């Protein structure tokens, strides 16, 4: 096999869930496509690496800094939704339920992985809490680390005199009660609210 092909296969294999076989198939596919496709792919990869960077305010990935979400004057500047990853931000954004600002931590507190407050942009978050911000929504995951992160951030944000809320956990829409595990059900019960 040509050296250039070997090299590309080796690089593709480093991608998540791509093995030797898949990588080889992808390379043959690229070679059998019109040359324009290969050039466009290479250029797109280069552009992503060159142009996309974390927004220095919220940590969202963007070609501009501040990012388009931070720069949008129509968004509610008084609420910040805190998430672990950019993927989580996109998930919240796709719900179309939220029109405030974001803060991407880049992970959760994880002593086992050596991640402390300095690695999750905690101070950057507290620094954003000016007079305009009235509420911070903690949307970290429901894992042990995500929960501990929420508890930690709560203390620091409350010191700054800002209201803190946590997204509700519980029963998924369309979920059957009998298949919900006890822990989730207990959370859903303790977090119940009056019907409107």
């Amino acid at each position, binding site marked *: 096999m040509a050296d250039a092909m070997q090299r590309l296969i080796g690089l593709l294999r480093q991608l998540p869930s791509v093995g030797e076989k898949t990588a080889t198939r992808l390379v043959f596919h690229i070679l059998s496509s019109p040359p324009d496709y290969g050039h466009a792919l290479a250029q797109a990869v280069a552009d992503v690496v060159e142009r996309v960077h974390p927004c220095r305010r919220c940590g969202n990935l963007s070609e501009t800094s501040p990012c388009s979400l931070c720069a949008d004057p129509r968004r509610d500047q008084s609420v910040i939704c805190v998430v672990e990853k950019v993927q989580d931000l996109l998930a919240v954004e796709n719900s179309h339920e939220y029109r405030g600002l974001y803060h991407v931590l880049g992970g959760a507190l994880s*002593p086992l992985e050596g991640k402390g407050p300095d690695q999750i942009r905690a101070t950057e978050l507290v620094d954003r809490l000016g007079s305009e911000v009235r509420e911070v929504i903690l949307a970290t995951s429901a894992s*042990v680390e995500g929960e*501990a*992160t929420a508890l930690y951030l709560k203390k620091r944000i409350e010191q700054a005199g800002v209201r803190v809320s946590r997204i509700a956990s519980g029963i998924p829409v369309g979920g059957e009660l009998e298949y919900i*595990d006890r822990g989730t059900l207990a959370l859903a019960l303790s977090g119940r609210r009056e019907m409107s």
Partner: protein
Amino acid sequence: MHLSQVQVSGYRNLIAQSIELSEGVNLFVGNNGQGKTNILEAVHFLSSLRSFRAAAVRDVIAHGEDVAQLGAKVLDDGLPTELKLILGGSGRRLWLGQRSISNVREYLGQFKVVAFTPDDLAMVKAGPALRRRFLDRAVFLFSPAHLTRVRQFQTALRSRNSLLKQRKKADLAVIDSFSQKMAEYGAEVSRARCDFVRRIEPRAAAILAEMEETSPRLDLRFKAGWQAGEDLSQADLYQDLCDSLDRDLLRKQTSHGPQQDDFEISLAGESARRFASQGQQRSCVVALLLAVVELADAELGLHPVILLDDVSSELDPDRRQQLLGLVSKLGSQLLITTTDEGLVGDMAGQVNRRFRVYAGRVDPL
């Protein structure tokens, strides 16, 4: 309910085969290293999706194979259910009959097992870790969510310990966050264990009395590994973690918590660990095991398949006799392994089907 058939392929040293099991007692005879325990482990995997030997999935896939395939036919009042399980490759895949199952909880309800190994027989005199393991497995039988809670608790505990060990100045606010989570999950774990000890005690005592007429009364007492009040509350555990923080920082380890939970087994008020003979200790353990099975019947209407790995040879003939008698009275199916050829003859009257296990092959005798 019983298992009528088990199929294995690509599993440890077992050759691809189908094993027809009988109701009642199934005895597997063979030398060490031939695959007896692997059969019990495969059944355990089919039931609970994990090994009783704390093995990872890649350990159970036979050398040179990509996946291990397990199958079982369960008969419940004559109604068959077929389970299939593929381990390895792109993860784990489950089937009930022809239907691919994505919800693990739906799969887990099909049939339950209680496993019992020589380690367990040493439970009375061994360290508390074995007794906690026994408790957690038994609680899991009644409430599968217990396993999740134990894992969450352990993650919180390991995180807290890792923070205590850090050389740089500890961030107390971060430690506190993990202490809070540890208290939340941990108190629930301790409560489940304590509650289980209470439920099982009268049954274990009655079974022991039945096994040994002269035996003194068996008592079980749960001992929380932390400063717990009557209700084992999250608030009390959190308070204990806060109170022990200074010492924990010095020792670089969490000193109190459910990781120290234990339960004491006593006979006529005396610690069985210190005062009972080895034979009496083993009878206590057998009584505990049978009490679990009896409780599963009483509370869940469930007859778990009992897996006894190399245990019968550790019991003297009288105790073995009693164990088998009580098991058959409970109506549970039993899978026993032994290296002792003599047992085949000794147990002839009580065994419904016998198998010889040699080099990964299982043949009915």
